[in-house]
């Protein structure tokens, strides 16, 4: 394959992973933006989505498309439910203390991860894509499913944007993010908004997991990389800025994809870290960060 063709392939790969990363990182960013806490177990919600997708496929049997559609609904619902439980049992009790939430969600990370290990096992398991078709480019054939993944991700991003700007819940979320005390004074049920946001964040991660699992495989440790990548995206984009998150997701996702194709994924991650350092040296608050130095 010529270099140009390889580059195009790398670009396609990068774009697909950028979309998935954008959805995952958006969940993390929403939670931080509105609730001012970091969910270190965010990657495990992603993994749960993938594992649930496998479980659904397993129970449904030989109908990958049906399983896929079911998983798209069941996954975020289950994970959203878990998120609400976590919010109620733990986060509320510590009053959303930033440090406490970090430590508690680290604990949650281990609990979820190991629980899946116990129940599901250490193997990586395959999930069949809902359909097989290839888009035939002049130089190579490309998985049609991957493009569908990008498409669904785009719809999710647009849907979230629409939800935030047009619905009442979205208004509540934006108001709470802007000024929590005033929001409460206006009668916005802040506690319930928090639960909803946490569920939404987890749900987005879960959907990303469901989308990705036919491409990768379902494995109990698969939450680690998405967590790290989401963290990188959120830092570079600037904590609390959704626009920054999306922009950074695409920059990082595409370059990570391209570098991974031409070099190794390991090198790509090392370079991403160096990129973050550079950004921070120049702009400690990230590209669109809230706090000016």
């Amino acid at each position: 394959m010529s270099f140009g063709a390889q580059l195009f392939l790398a670009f396609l790969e990068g774009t697909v992973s950028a979309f998935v990363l954008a959805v995952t990182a958006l969940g993390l960013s929403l939670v931080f933006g509105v609730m001012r806490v970091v969910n270190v177990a965010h990657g495990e919600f992603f993994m749960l989505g993938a594992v649930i997708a496998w479980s659904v496929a397993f129970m449904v049997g030989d109908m990958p498309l049906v399983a896929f559609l079911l998983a798209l609904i069941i996954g975020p619902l289950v994970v959203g439910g878990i998120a609400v439980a976590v919010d109620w049992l733990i986060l509320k009790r510590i009053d959303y203390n930033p440090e406490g939430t970090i430590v508690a969600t680290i604990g949650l990370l281990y609990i979820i991860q190991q629980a899946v290990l116990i129940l599901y096992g250490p193997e990586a398991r395959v999930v069949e894509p809902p359909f097989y078709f290839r888009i035939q480019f002049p130089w190579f054939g490309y998985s049609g499913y991957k493009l569908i993944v990008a498409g669904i991700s785009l719809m999710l991003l647009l849907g979230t944007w629409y939800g935030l700007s047009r619905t009442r819940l979205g208004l509540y979320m934006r108001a709470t993010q802007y000024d929590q005390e005033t929001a409460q004074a206006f009668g916005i049920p802040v506690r319930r908004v928090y639960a909803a946001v946490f569920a939404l964040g987890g749900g987005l991660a879960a959907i990303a997991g469901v989308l990705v699992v036919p491409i990768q495989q379902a494995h109990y440790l698969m939450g680690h990389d998405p967590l790290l990548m989401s963290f990188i995206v959120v830092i570079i984009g600037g904590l609390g800025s959704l626009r920054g998150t999306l922009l950074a997701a695409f920059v990082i996702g595409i370059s990570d994809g391209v570098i991974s194709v031409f070099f190794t994924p390991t090198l790509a991650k090392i370079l991403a870290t160096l990129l973050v350092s550079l950004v921070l040296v120049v702009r400690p608050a990230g590209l669109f960060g809230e706090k000016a130095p």
Partner: protein
Amino acid sequence: MTGGRQGSPWRTPMIVFALLLAAQFVLPDYHHTNMTRIMIFAVFAIGYNVAFGYAGLLSLGHAMFFAAGLYGAGMSAQFLGFSMPLAFLFGGLCGLVLALVAGLVALRTSGVSFLIVTLMFSQAAYLTILYFNDITRGDEGFVLAQEIRQLRFGEMVLPLTDPSLRYNLALGLFMVCYLLGVALLRSPIGRVLVALRENEPRVQMLGYNTFGYKLLALTISGALSGISGAAYALLFAYVGATFASTQYSIYPLLWVLLGGAGTALGPLIGTGLMFYLVEFASEITSSYLIVVGVVLVLLVIVFPKGVIGTLSERWRGTRT
């Protein structure tokens, strides 16, 4: 931290040191080795306590400092022929330098950003170790050759394989680092660190260069972590990439929280307790890390001050 201490502040550590010294004669072999390990990791916890317990820097990247010491000592001894003492010092130096460099960048951020940046730097260090597989032997790691693991004093040769020697070296190291930690806390520098954890703008307006102080805390923390890593490499002869993974960034946080952040004995108690909790859990299930998770969550909800912190509150009946 109220001013003017009544009685001797050195009494408790003296008792603990004496107990540890005596314990080696009564402990069965298995626990004897465990205690050696615990004391070495307790130094790591003391290091983490300086950054987190004193200065309030919540880092998830300390594994890279430990690994710097581990690989610095291990590789220089194995491949460069450094003597044991020299390799040990070199390992500590690696931890110090890495902490200084990383701190210069990472400390431009704070809070959540700092957490994420340290996590990522540590991850990059881990990946770098794997990337240079040829030199570092990657994930499998390597074992230090027996012949080099000995201390030479003139004609006398002391092998580091001897459990008694290892125990006492670890104990000596722990005692020195413990005393250093306490001395730092009670010094003028220590006061500034504790204050800056609580109200950084105020400390700045009193005329202190808070960036410099945070960097100092992180550097000392990294040096201690590196020393712990170096000791581990030389006394237990194994150097592997697992020690650079995120797990070993979470452990010191866990140990310090369990024992009580900012307390002097906390690191030892937390390390020891967790060590045995994990041992206990491993007998029940291979997924012992779930215990780590549960303990962390319980700590946050029920025992925010850790074991020592909660005990000392009940004992004195006042807030610390």
